[in-house]
């Protein structure tokens, strides 16, 4: 893990998510956002504290991607989803399922972690079906 930091704040967030310690930045009014942030994007408050993500997220929408750019060609077809993890929603690729249109539905519960992209091994936010489903 000696790779140079590329995106300050974001890299550390990904590392935390990979360690099972994913978090969101939350302002005094309860608006959640993801780093790097200096102010709340909703209200401009500059006092942001890290709060843990919910252990599982609920799928709000999903798609099955069949045509992707070169960096994701090795992964197609794949399912992307946006899931609600409490203070924030996360966007990621759903792994551990058959990438078919009915494999993931709105309301399904997922866990979030960090896995490698197929083509080049770069990090990405990955979802997996929650065990309790």
């Amino acid at each position, binding site marked *: 893990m000696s790779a140079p930091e590329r*995106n300050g704040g*974001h890299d550390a967030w990904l590392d935390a998510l990979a360690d099972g310690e994913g978090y969101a930045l939350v302002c005094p009014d309860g608006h959640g*956002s*993801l780093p790097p942030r200096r102010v709340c*994007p909703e209200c401009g408050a500059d006092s942001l504290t890290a709060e843990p993500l919910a252990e599982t997220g609920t799928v*709000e*929408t*999903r*798609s*099955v*991607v*069949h*045509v*992707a*750019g*070169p*960096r*994701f*060609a090795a*992964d197609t077809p*794949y399912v*992307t*989803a*946006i899931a609600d993890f409490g203070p*924030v*929603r*996360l*966007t*990621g*690729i759903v792994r551990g399922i058959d990438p078919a*249109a009915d494999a993931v539905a*709105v309301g399904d519960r997922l866990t979030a972690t960090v896995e490698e992209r197929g083509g080049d091994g*770069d*990090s*990405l*936010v990955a979802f997996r079906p929650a065990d309790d489903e």
Partner: protein
Amino acid sequence: MTDVRVAGVGLTQFGRHPDRTGRDLFATAALRAFEDAGVPREDVDELNYGNFMGALAEHQGHQAPLMAEAAGVNCPSTRYEEACASAGVAVREAVRTVRSGEADVVLAGGMERMTNLPTEEVTEGLAIAADDLFEVRAGVTFPGAYALMTTAYFDRYGGSRRDLAHVAAKNHANAVPNEYAQYREAVSVEEALDAPPVAEPLHLYDACPITDGASALVIVSAEYAADNDVDAPVAVTGTGQGTDRMALADREFLARTPAAADAAAAAYADADIGPADVDVAEVHDCFTIAEVLAVEALGFADHGEGIGAARDGLTTADGDLPVNLSGGLKAKGHPVGATGGSQIAELTRLLRGDHPNSERVADAEVGVAHNAGGTVASAVVHVLEVAE
């Protein structure tokens, strides 16, 4: 405040021009706009030029002075970039500049060159209009993002792929007589349904094509037109712009486009009209669902009702409010950085009566153009009216 007129419009053929440089495409559109306007080049005070991915497609940044040369004008020139709304904001700034009295004549428009790249690279290029850290790195493509919005819409309001296929069939039908359109063949609802998937629930005919092309408009003050005997019967009476959070996941609504609603409210207030006054619209249908969301944001249908607008005939060529008589991005094509200008060009032709589909809206007085950037993190709306 100075009244603003569209004195002339110019478009290239939209489609595949893999061997034509961007500068040649824009020069063609500008030449046609000057011919249409009857305005001499030396009267141009400023060039406002829209372009999105020229650095990727042609390894060319700093395009505005290059395009000033190509158009044969020598004046301050600025490139505007707002993803697929690049030309929309270029036109908007032309309107604001003329209104302010800073300029009498502005050449506004845009260009995009895309088909010289392989599809995979275009897909990756378009994706940079999304949030790189939190969307693109999570595998979100441009069609994939709109597919996420589609699933959210179906879940929230209902609707089906068949409803979306009606949007595709409508816009392909509208493009058949349009000499500038990339695809001039009719597509049936069944053909659209049977096409292969791109990002489910969206399939091939839900998506606009990859297009090369350019647009140019000669925007003038009403005083300039009168003083110089320039025939400019169409006025830009309203302009508005809106912004939303960049990433879909950060937005309050996954199945609404409040940036477009904000832009529409501002443009309507500017023009002192409401959605009921609109006779014809060109909207940003980069995907079929995008037209549905646009129709709702512009106030032509309630939330959840826009999905049926094409199916039920509200927005078809013989409907009460024809939408995308040009064929839209869907069938006319979507050279990203040129699209916002081409919408104003087509609306101007429709209102002037010299568009192949003008007879469909022979009595139209008020038109609206809706141009969106990315997944509508940006939106620009213009109101055009027949002034004389």
